[in-house]
């Protein structure tokens, strides 16, 4: 029993070591959330209303965790704005989740200045925890129409990479709707 515990602990240390080495080499780390159902949540938006993830079921959702103090997040924003314009009519909804303790007003001013065209939600860390204790920003999850996380990116991704991930999520959604009749019926 003790040996099993020791081996499990050792295995976790090895995984931790490999992850750290891969990060040092700048390699992408497969997110443990990939392939899982996106955890549901309800958060306040900048206009004071509540947005529940489940209310967006049927759309491809791009969940972008960001903060005002995060330059890579700021760099990504214009790309996300463009992609929202490009894919909005195809049922893609980008959602920004601010992991920021600078206050609603400052976040709202930042979003206005950046001319953000998608909802910004205010998190106090609870949703970041649900999505794997996110601390590195930006982190983005691509969720298919049936609520499955099909792709994720930790750290800044290039616009072509974001575009490709959206298309992957769109494709996954179509395939799953075609085969999962019960799910698509539920949505109607």
């Amino acid at each position, binding site marked *: 029993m003790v040996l099993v515990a*020791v081996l499990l602990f050792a295995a976790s240390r090895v995984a*931790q070591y490999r992850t750290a080495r891969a990060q*040092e080499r700048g390699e992408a780390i497969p997110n443990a959330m990939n392939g899982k159902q996106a955890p549901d949540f309800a958060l306040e938006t900048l206009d004071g209303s509540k947005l529940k993830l489940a209310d967006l079921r049927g759309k491809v959702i791009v969940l972008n965790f960001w903060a*005002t*103090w995060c*330059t890579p997040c700021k760099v990504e924003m214009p790309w996300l704005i463009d992609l929202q314009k490009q894919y909005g009519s195809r049922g893609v909804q980008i959602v920004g989740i601010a992991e920021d303790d600078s206050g609603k007003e400052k976040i709202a001013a930042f979003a206005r200045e950046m001319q953000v065209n998608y909802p910004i939600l205010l998190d106090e860390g609870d949703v970041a925890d649900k999505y794997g204790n996110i601390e590195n920003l930006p982190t983005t999850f691509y969720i298919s129409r049936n609520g499955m996380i099909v792709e994720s990116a930790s750290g800044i991704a290039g616009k072509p990479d974001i575009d490709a991930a959206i298309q992957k999520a769109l494709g996954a959604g179509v395939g799953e709707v075609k085969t999962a009749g019960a799910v698509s019926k539920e949505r109607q």
Partner: protein
Amino acid sequence: MKTGWIALACLLLLLPVSAQESLGTKDYVKLLSVSPVSLGSGKSGTVSLSFRIVPGFHINSNKPKAEYLIPTTLKLSPPTDISLAKITYPAGQEETFPFAPDEKMSVYAGDFVLTAKVLAIGSVHPGTYRVHGELRYQACDKSACYPPRSLPLNIDIRVQRAAHRRGYR
């Protein structure tokens, strides 16, 4: 056989987890040293604090180039008999990063030193006075940023009798 497995497990446990150990829960800046400081009553002196940023990371300087960025700041809470005159921050290194190749940022990377000028008030009794403080910073690497952190620190200031004053001013 059993002993072999245990030995293997112990070896694996000894593997270094590297500088990025337990990402998200560790400090990206470490306090290397605090220069010793001793003052005479009514005199001032300068304490130097040396920090090291974990390789691969950088933090904003005290004067980042954009309002939305979080500056590195040192906050000190001296006891009643010690006052804090001034904290001096080094100028940031102007660097660009892959995530924003057109934007020069003012950052600290590697080692950096902050200095704080402290003053022992005239009526202070000889002894050692502890100043509590914290370094607040926000770190990024070449593709992501991490939430602001505070590194707690202590500075011990020795106040000597007037007859044993050293050359600190």
